[in-house]
């Protein structure tokens, strides 16, 4: 779904590379290929550099107008692929790197990754001792490389999603997308709820929609009315075991993160839009 929106934003002169992830399967087993763009499968930790390699080849051949996109899961980005990603970001490779984050190693059967949020159940963080650390903030890591563009997006906000990809298409240099992508079996949700859950993640400020330009300029794209995180957590089986205290802990964490983000938005723009104030007080 996210891939379709991305390609909608990018047009058809796109080449992609995909490391080991769900998409290794989704695109189809040989001889099938579901996407209508050239695609190179690559090793788990190499999405960013494989894309850089393709980019280099296209540049040498004078095909600068072709967009090169790396499309990787959270494991391939937050964990094993972080080194190559950091390298590509630091070199400001002219590629688009997309991580579709389902917050665990889903393809291998739901093991925790560094993208797994606090309190979540996975097969390696069982209910008796669930994930004890917050999710790695990949956006801040990417911003720290001072890349021209980094943005969050989710399928639940398709217009925002497509707009950002269109915008990214015309930026030269490293562009990074963090896409929250619910995984029904991994999150223990019914398949028809995936869009709803993604939307709730935004509405509860667990997953804010924002952009960071040149690593510094922060723009919040959507100001949620602000529902309690409980609404988001309780939709999902992976959080069912959480106690009230744990939920409160998450709420405080989310509120704090949101305040930071709003502050950065204010720093960037000099002021806050009208709807911002309500988001700081309401739950």
């Amino acid at each position: 779904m996210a891939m379709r929106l991305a390609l909608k934003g990018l047009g058809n002169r796109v080449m992609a590379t995909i490391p080991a992830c769900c998409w290794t399967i989704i695109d189809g087993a040989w001889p099938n290929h579901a996407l209508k763009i050239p695609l190179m499968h690559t090793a788990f930790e190499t999405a960013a550099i494989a894309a850089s390699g393709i980019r280099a080849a296209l540049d040498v051949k004078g095909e600068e107008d072709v967009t090169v996109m790396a499309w990787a899961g959270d494991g391939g980005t937050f964990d094993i692929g972080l080194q190559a990603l950091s390298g590509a970001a630091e070199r400001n490779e002219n590629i688009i790197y997309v991580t579709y984050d389902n917050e665990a190693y889903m393809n291998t059967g739901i093991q925790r990754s560094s993208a797994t949020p606090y309190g979540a159940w996975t097969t390696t963080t069982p209910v008796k001792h669930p994930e004890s650390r917050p999710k790695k903030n990949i956006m801040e890591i990417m911003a720290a490389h001072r890349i021209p563009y980094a943005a969050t997006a989710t399928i639940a906000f398709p217009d925002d999603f497509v707009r950002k990809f269109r915008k990214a298409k015309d930026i030269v240099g490293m562009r990074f997308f963090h896409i929250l992508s619910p995984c029904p079996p991994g999150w223990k949700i019914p398949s028809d709820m995936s869009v709803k859950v993604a939307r709730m993640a935004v509405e509860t400020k667990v997953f804010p929609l924002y952009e960071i330009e040149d690593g510094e300029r922060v723009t919040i794209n959507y100001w949620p009315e602000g529902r309690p995180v409980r609404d988001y957590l309780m939709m999902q089986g992976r959080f069912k075991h959480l106690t009230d205290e744990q939920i409160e802990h998450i709420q405080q964490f989310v509120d704090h993160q949101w305040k930071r983000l709003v502050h950065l938005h204010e720093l960037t723009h000099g002021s806050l839009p009208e709807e911002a104030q309500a988001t700081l007080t309401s739950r």
Partner: protein
Amino acid sequence: MKLLENSTYTVLKGNHAVSVGAKLARVEVISAYPITPQTTIVELLSEMVASGELRARFITVESEHSAMAGCIGASLAGARAFTATSAQGLALMHEMLHWAAGARAPIVMANVNRAMAPPWSIWTEQTDSLSQRDTGWMQIYNESNQEALDSVILAYKVAEQVRVPAMIVLDAFILSHTSEPVEVYPQEVVDAYLPPYENPNALNLEHPHAIGSLADPNVYMEFRYKLQKAHEEALRVFKEEGQRFKEYFGRAYDTLEAFYLDDADYVLVTAGSMTSTAKYTVAQLREKGEKVGILKIRLFRPFPFEDVRNALRGRKKVAVIDRNISFGHSGIFYSEIKSALYRDSGAPPVFGYIAGLGGRDVRPNDIVEIYEDLKQREEPAEPILWKGVRV
């Protein structure tokens, strides 16, 4: 070829010979990470790219693993890709070496042989490259700087025809940092020999396809079969192109090189720079009337079984001198040579010597001692005969 009159003769270090070879091959993407003793290869290439002398993109990656992944991306997107590494770096690349071969990306890489740590060592030993023998890469071992330069060009010529990646291997310092006179060919001649890279499998927008997609047990084996067949084809093409090389550049190459071999009763099998020492020694032994010769292994993968059998059939004894070791087994060339001779009616006894690990010098005296030892050795052969180990 007339144009060759325009060749320049210059003194180059082995690493720079490799760089010049890559430049003459008009590599388009270089994706590399520094490691001693490989660094000067990419330093020179980087300068060439920066000055515009070489029209290529140089990706200064953050690891060897990425160096290879970048080459694969570039190669499958239709660019001639090159990298160079050594030892630890090569080991880190291991996963991607399989990938490059499996994806049939005809990348050429120079590996400067260096001993694996620990203990830390920056000096020559072949265990690093030989550890990668099952990754599906061609491996070409080089004795001189000229050979190293030539091998880059030849490797591309062969690799791109059969779409199998190739590693050209040279010894740390002994070649890499040692200057020798090298003939640098005019670009036009190289261009005439090596056409621009084209890969029919390369990503293209007109027929968007995926490369490297999942293969279930019904089809995976067929792709492995295809890769093996490509290696078999590579052997043929290598021999053919090695001869054609002479038409363009005046030097012929084969899978093996013989030195005083025709009437030799005793044969020393070597690879890499050690061969030069052995040649120097054997020439003197010949003067003394010893019927000894040298068989140099140039092409290790695909392995030239037939050539090895033909070269060794009917000899009295063979000594394989390995600057490498497969722990728990023996010298790697030794075991490969033995396997080539298995059940050959005229197969001679073969003895395996381990020498010069971690860059320890193998001197003419050592060669003489090995030869003397060989002559008095009786079968059955011990799996390992250590030369010069002080324990």
